[in-house]
């Protein structure tokens, strides 16, 4: 797919993200200057409607930015900000600009206080909470989904990180929100768990493509027994397996992205997150096997990518969570046969 915004993002990330920046971010430093460039390019607004400041590109194209960010190991909440802005726009709330993140809000208790809403509870494993201005979440008030825009300065943030050193903080919430920061969600986009699973699947596919090309390059360069190890059939078959798993992950994630904001999304995202999570096992293991000891060091870039894909498996629903959900749907479906369930759960596809 030819895409101007993809080309723009490729250039921006290629020119600005290197091993040093990823190392520094993993040590806890937010690369603020890079965020400024992303914001100047408008990438963080790609998933909102054109009238709200977006590019007017299809959702699947906007979401393609997440795969590209994953391919570069971007240590910033671009994917989270894309989703947060889309959810805020859908609820008719103000788009505050700056870095945002998303969190599953099921654990929050909401109570009406006149025109305002009191939110109390704890948000767990919130991506980049320390580095953002607001956390956008969805929680139920009297059975109706509400979007909440929570200013981080008014929360208690308990820092923690994932395997790759990226902030994954907990946040204590005890806030009274006015109508400016809380509104009902008229048409669901699938809940924060599903949306989070979507961006992690896309980023995983992108990171795997980078892992694959790094591993191909290493195998072609590294000489043992008088020839590049790429010439050994075992190595070739490892890399072919990695390519298959990577292709499946990308197809799965793009299938879910294609059905974003459609009824098919609930099941396609379940397939995407579980399929890419499973692939992360094979791709990570084989990449390290081919790289040998050098790939097991801090100085080599490989670990930034393998740690990311392993961490992302655990966020917004593990393989077990999503396969159970999909299996429950398959086994209790009213369809006459399993096949009819499969054809009905497929993505909408893209018109020629």
């Amino acid at each position, binding site marked *: 797919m030819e895409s101007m915004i993809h080309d723009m993002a490729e250039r921006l990330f290629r020119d600005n993200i290197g091993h040093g920046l990823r190392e520094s971010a993993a040590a806890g430093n937010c690369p603020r200057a890079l965020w400024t460039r992303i914001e100047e390019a408008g990438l963080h607004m790609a998933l909102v409607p054109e009238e709200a400041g977006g590019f007017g590109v299809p959702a699947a194209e906007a979401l393609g930015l997440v795969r590209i960010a994953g391919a570069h190991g971007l240590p910033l909440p671009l994917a989270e900000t894309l989703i947060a802005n889309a959810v805020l726009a859908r609820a008719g709330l103000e788009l505050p600009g700056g870095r945002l993140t998303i969190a599953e809000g099921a654990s929050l208790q909401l109570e009406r206080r006149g025109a305002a809403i009191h939110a109390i509870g704890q948000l767990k494993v919130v991506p980049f909470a320390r580095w953002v201005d607001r956390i956008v979440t969805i929680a139920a008030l009297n059975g109706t989904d509400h979007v909440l825009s929570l200013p981080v300065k008014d929360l208690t943030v308990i820092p923690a990180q994932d395997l790759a050193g990226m902030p994954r903080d907990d946040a204590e919430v005890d806030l009274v929100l006015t109508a400016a920061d809380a509104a009902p969600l008229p048409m669901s986009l699938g809940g924060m768990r599903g949306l989070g699973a979507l961006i992690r699947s896309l980023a995983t596919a992108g990171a795997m493509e980078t892992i694959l090309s790094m591993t191909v390059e290493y195998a072609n360069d590294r000489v043992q027994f008088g020839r590049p190890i790429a010439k050994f059939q075992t190595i070739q078959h490892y890399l*072919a397996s990695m390519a298959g798993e990577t292709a499946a992950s990308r197809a799965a994630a793009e299938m879910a992205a294609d059905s974003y904001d459609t009824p098919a999304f609930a099941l396609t995202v379940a397939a995407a997150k579980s399929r890419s999570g499973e692939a992360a096992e094979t791709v990570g293991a084989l990449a390290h096997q081919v790289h040998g000891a050098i790939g097991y060091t801090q100085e080599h870039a490989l670990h930034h990518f393998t740690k990311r894909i392993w961490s992302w498996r655990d966020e917004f629903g593990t393989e077990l969570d999503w396969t159970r959900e999909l299996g429950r749907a398959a086994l209790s479906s009213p369809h006459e046969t399993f096949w009819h369930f499969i054809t009905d759960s497929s993505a909408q*596809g893209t018109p020629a």
Partner: protein
Amino acid sequence: MTLTAFPPPAPDTDYDILRQEVRAFLAVELADFPPDMRAKSWNGFSRDFSRKLAQRGWVGMTFPREYGGHARSALERYVVSEELLAAGAPVISHWIADRQSGPLILAKGTEEQKRAIVPRIAAGELCFCIGMSEPDSGSDLAATRTVATEVEGGFRVNGTKVWTTYAHVADYMILFCRTDKSDDRHGGMSQFLIDLKATENIQISPIIDMAGEHHFNQVIFDDTFLPADALLGEKGEGWSQVMSELAFERSGPERFLSSFTLIEELIRLLGKDATEAQQAEIGRLSAHLMVLRQMSRSVARMLNEGKNPALQAAIVKDLGALFEQDVPRLARSLVSRPAVPGGRDSYAAVLAYTELAVPSFSLRGGTREILRGIIARGLGLR
């Protein structure tokens, strides 16, 4: 990395009406077709079924109307194919001709060949087989030794083909053999269109597979005379002609639905009472299936647009074979019910059939090792 990019397939909903028509047809035609017969998947043989399917316009769908086809898209054909496979319909009588021999003749054949053969394929009347492998040429197709020597009025063929599926009932064979000496390993090869019912000195004998089934044959050519007009395409261009067939052969839904009857039986047994662990396994299977279908439909779209997705097709076949071969293991891990060949319990019978069928899935149509070699070359490792 284009190798791992599969562009989105066309919208499924474009073909809802066609899909419902096919389902209604199958509900009637296969009403009494038992699960252990459905388990044979695309290896089930019924000329009668193929003819009836053709009467509905669902054989030779993509062929031009002037050759008896229906000028429909590869994506419409895909819908019909996957519905047939999911139902376990007996399709082999027309399958190979519809999938690759018909398109090959249309692309490379002479006007006479097209007029004589293609309308009969579209009518569901002709069964094709492919004479490719030899005793000393399996995965290494370039080691082909069968030779066609030019003689007055045609060619004389000598050599032996093996693993020729359904040669014992087929009407035609597409033969791949050597016509010239060549320094290029891939040079000097040609393809021939052979009327098996009208050609003398061809000896076809059965090779029974380990499941006790007769699909394979050995085909011996003993100074077999072929008229000059049996040559299909350019003399010496056989290698590239065969390679261009492969994307059609390797990416279709038959590359991941071969065990589908067992999946349906398993899900019927588990039903709504499944445990959480069983749900998770069925969910995993569903995810794999949804993704394979997405990738396979993506390749169908690329083929429809005239691209050559040979690498993507190899990926689909490699992943597809792993998936369909894993189904018996999965079933056994979820249900404790022993396999019984030919048993009255349909699950047990289908499990037995499928267990014995799966080893072939990563052999036929390109072994796993060959596919991974192709993918490795695509990655720039060779």
